C-alpha cells in the first residue's frame, strides 16, 4: 500500500459510522480465512486501520454471542504472536456480494483502462473484466450505462516510449509544441508519472530546461527519444495535485477581463475563472488569471465578436493591433 493510498483511505474513513465498521468486520473474517493465517501489521495496512483498531475489531468479533435457543459464540479466533487465525466462523467465511455502485465503479474503470494505449497488456484487462462481471452478477449491469471516452489521438509510439522510460528509469528528450507561444521547444525530461486526467494523457516529469515539475500533453509531443541516461528526479520534486484541477492559476498571473456574448460563454467552462457575473444585457463578464498573456491575445482573436477583452488596457490595445495586422494581410 502506498502512503498516498493509505492517506486517502484515512481521509475517507474520517468519521466511521456503525455501518462502515460493520462492513469492515464482515470483510475481516473472510480476509483471514482465505489466507489461513495472516500477520497483524499486514492486515491493519490492508484495511487502512491501526493495529490497535484491528485488535478492537478482532475482540468484537470474538465476543459475538447468540443467546437463544442455546447460548453460543459463533466466531473463534486468536491473534497470538502477531498472527491472526480464525478457527470457527460459521456462515461468515465469505465476503458480502458487491453492491451496484461497487461493481460499477470497478467495471467502468477497467473498461476505461482497456481503451488506454498506455496499459500495455489488454489481455489481463479483458480477463479481469470477464471474471469481475461473473462475480458481480446483476450488480454490474448498470455499468453498461456508463461510458468513458479517452483521447485516441496520441501516437502509440509516444506512449510506448514514455512507459519504456518510466519502467527503466531513463531520461527522455522531447520536442514539445507550446500552443500559447506557437513554438516547438526541445527539452530533456526525467519522467515521473504517466497521467490520464480529464480524458487526456500527460507525462509528468522533471523538466531540465525549466528546472521544475511540468506536465506535457502526449498529443503535443512532436518527437520523443529515450536517452541512454538514467533519469534523475530531484528528491524535492513533488507530484502535481491533479485532483483539484489541472491548471491552477497563481496569484502572480495576469488578471484579465472578458465580456462574452452567448456564443463565447464556453470560455467560462473551459478556463478556471475567478469571478463570473451576468450582465444586464445578457452577456457574461469573467475574470481569469493567466501565466501567459500571449495565450490571452490568441483567445481574444479566436473569439472575435463572441467575446471582448476589456482589461488590462495594454493587452486590449495589443489585441486590436494583432487583429489590424492580420486583416492587413487580406488587403
Amino acid at each position, binding site marked *: 500500500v502506498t502512503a498516498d493510498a493509505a492517506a486517502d483511505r484515512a481521509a475517507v474513513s474520517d468519521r466511521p459510522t456503525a455501518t462502515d465498521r460493520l462492513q469492515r468486520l464482515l470483510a475481516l473474517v473472510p480476509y483471514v480465512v482465505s489466507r489461513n493465517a495472516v500477520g497483524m501489521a499486514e492486515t491493519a495496512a490492508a484495511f487502512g486501520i491501526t493495529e490497535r483498531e484491528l485488535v478492537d475489531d478482532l475482540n468484537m468479533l470474538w465476543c459475538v454471542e447468540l443467546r437463544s435457543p442455546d447460548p453460543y459464540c459463533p466466531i473463534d479466533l486468536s491473534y497470538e504472536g502477531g498472527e491472526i487465525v480464525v478457527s470457527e466462523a460459521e456462515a461468515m467465511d465469505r465476503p458480502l*456480494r458487491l453492491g451496484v455502485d461497487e461493481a460499477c465503479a470497478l467495471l467502468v474503470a477497467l473498461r476505461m483502462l482497456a481503451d488506454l494505449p498506455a496499459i500495455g497488456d489488454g489481455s489481463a484487462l479483458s480477463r479481469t473484466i470477464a471474471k469481475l462481471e461473473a462475480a458481480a452478477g446483476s450488480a454490474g449491469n448498470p455499468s453498461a450505462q456508463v461510458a468513458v471516452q479517452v483521447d485516441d489521438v496520441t501516437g502509440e509510439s509516444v506512449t510506448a516510449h514514455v512507459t519504456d522510460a518510466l519502467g527503466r528509469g531513463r531520461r527522455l528528450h522531447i520536442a514539445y509544441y507550446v500552443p500559447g507561444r506557437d513554438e516547438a521547444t526541445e527539452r530533456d525530461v526525467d519522467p515521473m508519472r504517466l497521467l490520464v486526467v480529464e480524458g487526456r494523457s500527460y507525462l509528468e516529469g522533471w523538466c531540465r530546461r525549466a528546472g521544475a515539475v511540468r506536465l506535457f500533453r502526449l498529443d503535443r509531443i512532436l518527437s520523443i527519444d529515450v536517452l541512454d541516461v538514467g533519469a534523475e528526479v530531484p528528491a524535492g520534486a513533488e507530484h502535481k495535485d491533479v485532483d483539484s484541477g489541472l491548471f491552477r492559476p497563481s496569484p502572480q498571473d495576469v488578471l484579465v477581463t472578458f465580456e462574452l456574448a452567448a456564443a463565447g460563454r464556453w470560455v467560462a467552462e473551459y478556463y478556471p475563472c475567478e469571478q463570473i457575473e451576468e450582465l444586464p444585457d445578457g452577456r457574461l463578464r469573467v475574470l481569469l488569471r493567466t501565466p501567459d498573456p500571449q495565450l490571452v491575445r490568441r483567445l481574444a482573436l479566436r473569439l472575435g465578436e463572441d467575446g471582448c477583452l476589456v482589461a488590462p488596457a495594454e493587452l486590449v490595445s495589443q489585441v486590436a493591433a494583432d487583429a489590424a495586422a492580420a486583416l492587413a494581410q487580406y488587403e
Partner: protein
Amino acid sequence: MSRRKTERLLSLVVCLLSARKYLTAAQIRDAVPGYPESFDAFKRMFERDKDELRELGIPLETGMNPGGEEEPGYRIPRQAYELPDIRLEPDEAAVLGLAARVWRRAELAGAADGALLKLRAAGIDAEDMTQPGIEPRLQTGEAAFGPLWEAVRDGRPVTFGYLAPGRSTQQQRRLEPWGVVNRRGHWYVVGQDTDRREQRIFRLSRVAGPVAFTGPPGSVTVPPGTDVRGAVRDWDTGSPPPRNCLLRIRAGAGYGLRRHAVSVRPDGEPGWDLVEVPFSEPGWWSEHIASFGADVVVLEPTDLRDAVIGRLKGVLA
C-alpha cells in the same frame, strides 16, 4: 452508542446468516443481545436495523417456514449473501488495483474502495503495481454527477435547470436518463427528453441547481439496443466531410497548423510557406486560424477566408 449498535448489527447478521429457517421477530429478540426489553421499542429498533442492513446490500429475506408458525420470519440466504468465488492471476490483480485508483477522490471513490475491500476479503491481493507510474483518473467535479448516476442506476426520471450553450437564461428540462458518458473529461447524460420526445444529450456542467427525481425507481425503461457509448461516438460522424485549405504561414510560426499539414512548400515571397491542411468545420477552423493573427493567411477556400476575415473584424467591432 455507535459501538453498541455495531455489536448489535454484527450479531444480527451472524444470527440470520446461520439460521437454517426463518426466524420470527421474537426469536431474533431472544437470540441477539442489545435490544430493549419492551416489544414496541424492540420492533422500532429492529425495523431501523433491517433498513440499514438492506442499504449495505445484505439480502434480508422475509418468508414463512413450511408448516410452521403463522408469523412471517427473517433470514439471510447464504447463496444470495456471498460473493461468488473469484480468483485472479497476479497480472489481473494488478490491473484491478489500478482500476480501483481511477476514481480517487471522485464520486465513486468510496464504492471502489468498498469493492476492493471485499475482493481482498475473497483472497485477492490487489496491491502490486506492475506498471510503475501510470495513474489514470476519472474526475466528477460536476455537482449533478451524483444524482444523475443514481437516476441512471435506479431507472428514475429527473428534472433539472439547464443552461444551453449560446443562451443566457436557463430552462427546465425533463429527462428519462439512459446513461452517463465522459468525453474528453466532461460528463454528459443521454436520455429521452420527455417534452421534446426525442433522444438528447446534456452536459453536466451546464446543469444549474439541483436535480430532482420525478418518478420511482424502475420507472425508466432504456430502449433495447440502446448503445450509450455509440451515442457519443456518433457526435463526430455528424461533421461535414474534410476538405483541404491552402494557407500562407510565416516561416517558424503556425506549428499548431503545420502539425496536420499534408504538404508544405516555400512561397514565392521569402520567409513564408504555402501549407495545405485538411479541415471539416469551417466555423471552428476559422476561429483556430484567427488565433494565429498575422502569422497565417487563408488563400483558399473562399468561405474559410471570409470566415477568418469576419472573425478578425469582430475583434475590432
